[in-house]
């Protein structure tokens, strides 16, 4: 276990965090999930040297610290791409450490299902290098299967640290968009309609209670989610030129119930109604027709699509930066206002990997 000197509970924490995050930040910029890309950045930053110079009795404690830190990049709520980077970082650190015998990677029981889900997402998207590296770690018996990610000795933090997660690595909240989707709105407006009829049938037409019904409930809900999305986009300083005209006027446009129903019925909301059943079961199936040489569908909530490892091996490792920057996929919410068959196709991919 880690012993530390009085008052110095975690030496190097700030520096380690900064080093790891600058490495992952560079990896993020490449928009790639390839290990080859990662290892190039690793070599360029001489990251193996991070272990060099640690004196004998520090080695184990240092390995422990850096592995614990790297583990935190491998878990939600970080984006799929950063999690891949976190996995590569864990693997590379584990293999480069100078402590002997090596310190193990601690994986907590509560996180294991996320690890398995990650593996499945990566496998479904044919990111074979990511799957291979995760399997290698198991093969090397690099894991300690633990109760908690770190040892707990009832030490309360003397200083409350700010949230440890680097903001740009965190998956943007998309729960509102995921929850308030086309299906839900459709169902909601149907129920709303039924409810309205029931209310009307049990009361006199002149009675005021009918007004208790929030007439524009569904459009308003939709509008709020759109607003949230817009706000999020602006916060991210993401250019929203194309959608702007339509988007900003969304609320007034949508308050028109007829228009809303029409848009709900349209394909812009994603899949056809008959597909919705299977989706409710949240099954992830492998699409046998998926084109191996084309950009593969990104797993999880990743917004980028990248060529699969397999695709690349077929192309005999002809790498170029452009190739990795495959067309960026879009979030589902943007289709609430735009009709685009290609985009709708991507929505399908997106939905095939529901989060949680």
């Amino acid at each position, binding site marked *: 276990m880690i012993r530390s000197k009085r008052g110095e509970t975690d030496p190097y924490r700030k520096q380690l965090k900064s080093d790891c995050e600058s490495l992952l930040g560079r990896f993020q910029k490449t928009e790639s999930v390839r290990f080859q890309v990662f290892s190039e950045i690793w070599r360029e930053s001489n990251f193996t040297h991070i272990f060099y110079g640690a004196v004998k009795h520090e080695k184990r404690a240092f390995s422990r610290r850096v592995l614990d830190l790297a583990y935190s990049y491998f878990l939600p709520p970080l984006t799929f791409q950063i999690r891949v980077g976190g996995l590569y970082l864990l693997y590379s650190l584990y293999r480069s450490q100078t402590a002997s015998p090596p310190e193990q990677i601690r994986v907590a029981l509560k996180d294991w299902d996320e690890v398995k889900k990650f593996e499945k997402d990566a496998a479904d998207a044919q990111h074979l290098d990511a799957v291979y590296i995760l399997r290698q770690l198991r093969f090397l018996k690099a894991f300690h299967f633990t109760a908690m990610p770190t040892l707990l000795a009832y*030490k309360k933090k003397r200083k409350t640290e700010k949230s440890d997660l680097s903001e740009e690595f965190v998956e943007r909240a998309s729960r509102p968009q995921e929850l308030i989707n086309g299906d839900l709105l459709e169902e909601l407006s149907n129920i709303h309609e039924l409810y309205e009829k029931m209310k009307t049938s049990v009361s006199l037409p002149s009675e005021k209670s009918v007004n208790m019904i929030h007439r524009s409930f569904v459009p308003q809900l939709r509008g709020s989610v759109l607003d949230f999305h817009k706000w999020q986009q602006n916060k991210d300083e993401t250019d929203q030129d194309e959608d702007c005209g339509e988007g900003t006027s969304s609320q007034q446009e949508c308050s028109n119930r007829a228009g809303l129903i029409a848009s709900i019925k349209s394909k812009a909301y994603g899949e056809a109604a008959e597909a919705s059943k299977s989706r409710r079961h949240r099954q992830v199936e492998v699409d046998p027709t998926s084109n191996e040489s084309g950009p593969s569908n990104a797993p999880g909530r990743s917004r980028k699509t990248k060529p699969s490892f397999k695709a690349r091996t077929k192309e005999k490792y002809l790498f170029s930066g452009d190739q990795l920057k495959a067309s960026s996929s879009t979030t589902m919410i943007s289709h609430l206002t735009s009709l685009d068959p290609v985009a709708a196709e991507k929505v399908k991919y997106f939905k095939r990997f529901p989060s949680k």
Partner: protein
Amino acid sequence: MAASGGSTTSNTNIPEYEYSDVNTKPFHIGGFRSEWLSRLTPDDYSYQPEEEDTFDANFAKEHGVSAETMAELKSVCSIDSLRCHPEDEQPDPEVVPPNPTLQTLIERKKKQDYKASRKITKNRHDLYANELERLTYGMKPEAVDDILPEGEVILTVNVYYPASYDKFNYVRPHMTLLMTGSHSLAEFRDAICCVSDLQVCGEFSNTPNIAPDFISKDHYKSAFFYFEGVFYNDMRYPECQDISMTTIEWAKSHNFPSYSQAKMEDTRFMDLNVKVGFPYLYCHQGDCEHLVIITDVRLTHKNDCLDKELYPLLTHKHRVATQKCSVCHIFIGRWFTTNDEFAPSHPCLFCDKCFRTLHYNEDGYKLGDFLAYPYVDRGAFN
């Protein structure tokens, strides 16, 4: 025997934080183990290495990749791809490389330069900090029967020394033991060393030779652990008393949540409901109280000490400064005296040799009118 005391047993044995980064909610150790085993393949926790060819073949088959692709994959992900120097140059991993750019290395260099400039010598405790554990890494028993079963759990338990309020440091003095899930709490008790178990009671100035046989562990055998609403009493010997009864009855009469009792010797760690990271209690010698914190629970690993016989395994022992003899200042104090005309202070501490030389003549005859009490130094266990 499952402990179901004051706190409600959660129906999941997947540990979750109760307070983030501090302690977990209660869970059942045996249940936790089952949860892990149900999620893993035996290969994951086996002590035997898996064949690389088998691994490759399985991977290729599962993901439908050709031998060629598999070879590429292996080469791309190889350890060579992480090498940060030309193949024929191996820099010295014992020194910080020149002109580092990583923040960690810049900081490490700074610390080392500072230490060098101040000529700070390395602390003996730092040097030996992990020695105890390192000695037993991957150690295998001679007899096959003595090997720790694969998939067994190992618990890391800290036992803290009774609080001494005058010396409160960030690092509270404690010992760390590795226990296995099949250890009973009685075995745990026997592994805890506390000076009060060895304290010799009484005045022995007339018979200094018989004193060391008369230690208190033999006299006061009662003890208990307290975990999650249950008192676990040591009832192995006829003279043991259920010393938790007083507390239980007091709690009952004051409308506290009811506590229950169980026997230490009948309870294995596997049977416990506990919170990891949470302070519990060990009480012995009537009033010597120690905090007990289970800091970690995990499955065994091939690099662990695999010899069952070496558990409970002591991995850390706090080193306390020893009280030296006030005459020679070399040896650890073994006696303290009062009413002592030979002593520079009252009371005064002596090593065995100085004590006897000063207080008895060559025939062992007591000189003077002093009182002598055997003394066991806390640091004597170092």
